[in-house]
């Protein structure tokens, strides 16, 4: 009974964050299944789970998604979903800047995932390291590079996008 109560508490505490993580990267149609898969692994591996479980759970979610998505163009799917308006669920999302999404899609997989974990999932660098299964120093080095790459990609997108000009009446 104790283990189950702890498991339910784990889900109540982190289920929303895990679902949000999945929704940023996958179709809403599979999100609940992915979350269930993540917590199934969590149940099986509950004795291995660290005290700060969220990065560990997101790391599992990342692997579950990677397996579901084999062969898919991840960012294409994300861009498609955002463009089709399926990115928003039951929260009030900010307005999505398509140039930002396109710039994000220009990055390599590791740079993109790093930035998304840090900025969208709001993990600390130490938590990102845990979610990715790498050392904290590695994250710091990669982050420096990823930030620069993203800024360059976004600048390029801005330069390629015609500016809207307000016509005086």
């Amino acid at each position, binding site marked *: *009974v104790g283990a189950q109560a702890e*498991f*339910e508490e784990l*889900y*109540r505490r982190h*289920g*929303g964050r*895990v*679902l*949000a993580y999945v*929704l940023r990267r996958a179709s*809403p*149609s*599979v999100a*609940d*299944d992915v*979350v*269930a*898969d993540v917590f*199934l*692994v969590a*149940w099986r*591996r509950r004795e291995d789970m660290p005290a700060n479980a969220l990065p*560990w759970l997101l790391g*599992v979610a990342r*692997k579950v998604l*990677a*397996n*579901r998505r*084999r*062969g*898919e*163009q991840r960012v*294409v*799917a994300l861009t*498609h*979903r*955002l463009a*089709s*308006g*399926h*990115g928003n669920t*039951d*929260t*009030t*999302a*900010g*307005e*999505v*800047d398509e140039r*930002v*999404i396109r710039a994000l899609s220009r990055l390599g997989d590791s740079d993109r995932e790093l*930035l998304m974990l840090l*900025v*969208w999932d709001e993990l600390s660098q130490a938590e990102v390291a845990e979610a990715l*299964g790498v050392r904290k120093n590695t994250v710091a080095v990669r982050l420096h590079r990823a*930030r620069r790459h*993203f*800024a360059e990609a976004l*600048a390029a997108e801005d330069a390629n996008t015609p500016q809207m000009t307000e016509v005086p009446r």
Partner: protein
Amino acid sequence: MIDEALERLRDSNPVPGEVTPASVDYLLARIEADAPERPRRRLRARVATTLVPTLAVATALAVAAVAIVVLSHRRGGANTPASGPSTLRVPSRGMPGVLMVDGVTFEPRGLWTISLTQCFPCATNQRMRNWTLTSTDGGDSWSTEQAGWLNSGQFSNTRDGWATGATGVPGGRGEHAYVTHDGGRTWAVASAPAGWSVGGISVSGPMVWAIAARPGSGTLILRGSAAGDALSPVRVQPGTNDEAATVAAAGADTAYVDALRGHHVEHFVTHDGGERWQTLPRFCPIEGGDRTLTVDSPTSLWRFCWDGSAPALLGRSLDGGRTYRSYHVPAPGPQGAPERFQAVSGQIAWEMTDHGDVIRIIEGGARSKVVWWRKGSQRTAVHGVPEALTVVDAQLVYVTVVVPPAKGATGSNLVVYATNDGGRTWQAHVVPLPAEAH
């Protein structure tokens, strides 16, 4: 500049903060269905009051059942009649980790190929193995090779088949087209334009069509002889840059291509082997709702449209995609999403939901019947997770299922269910998993 860029990234978060997940009861029910060692809120009390007195009898029956399974395996026959899911027994010593089916091919003479990924352990750094399991006798005996994965193979005849896949790291880039000319016993990388990843194939009659993509270069539509070893770009391309475009072949010279342009999916068709392309009207009224296209003749096709809420919309066209008759198709099961739709004729199609419900659609879409409802029905065929639906014809259908470990077992198992009477009865084939994976 960098800080400003990150600020804009933060402002463009499509799902800021956290969202409300499904209820914990849904999760527990889902885990209940997937793995019997997870929490059992309601069963626990019953165990103490009703099962304990019969424990000795149950133990004896279990020992007998294990003995039967062991003996049947020693005879070389792992097949078990699927008179009901509760009669199926799988080895207690399965494959550890999480098993995922990448692709399956079932050739009617009994040449079967299953591509399998094993994630073990899943909770630490990514560590995966890929296995290719092959049977040449309809599932009675199997050979195993640790290799790259093959995805969704299709056969032109009893010899020639095509698949996509990649060697090496799962999810890695550089997908190839693979070809077999011995009914699936051996596969080789087919020739295709260098630097392009082949992401989808479609075999119809003597020809194979494929989609290849290269980042920054858009897509190429390829075509080749199913009996050959090479794919070449068709002379005229439909002009799509969608790297996730799909192709569905319908005879030697006809192929339909779906590609995203802006916010919409565009439909193209050629009836002369890629010399000319026509743009077809859209069927799905929902942006992003186009799911699946299957064709059963050059002018007969089915489209699936689904926006995340049941029921799905099924479109049936008999004039090559110019006009459609629409039907609503149920998606049974909690939040089940329709997917893996496959038509076998102008009248009959099969659908599997992402929760593993199997539905047979008849009368050109006008009627449908659930032949396999994973949970909540006496039709439930197996305790496990259906991973692949393979429809050979109106009667012959295969469902590949991963069976999670039962309590006390060490791993998952793999079962192929086959029906040759349109889903009325099912034959179960327990796939022996490689010993070195334990």
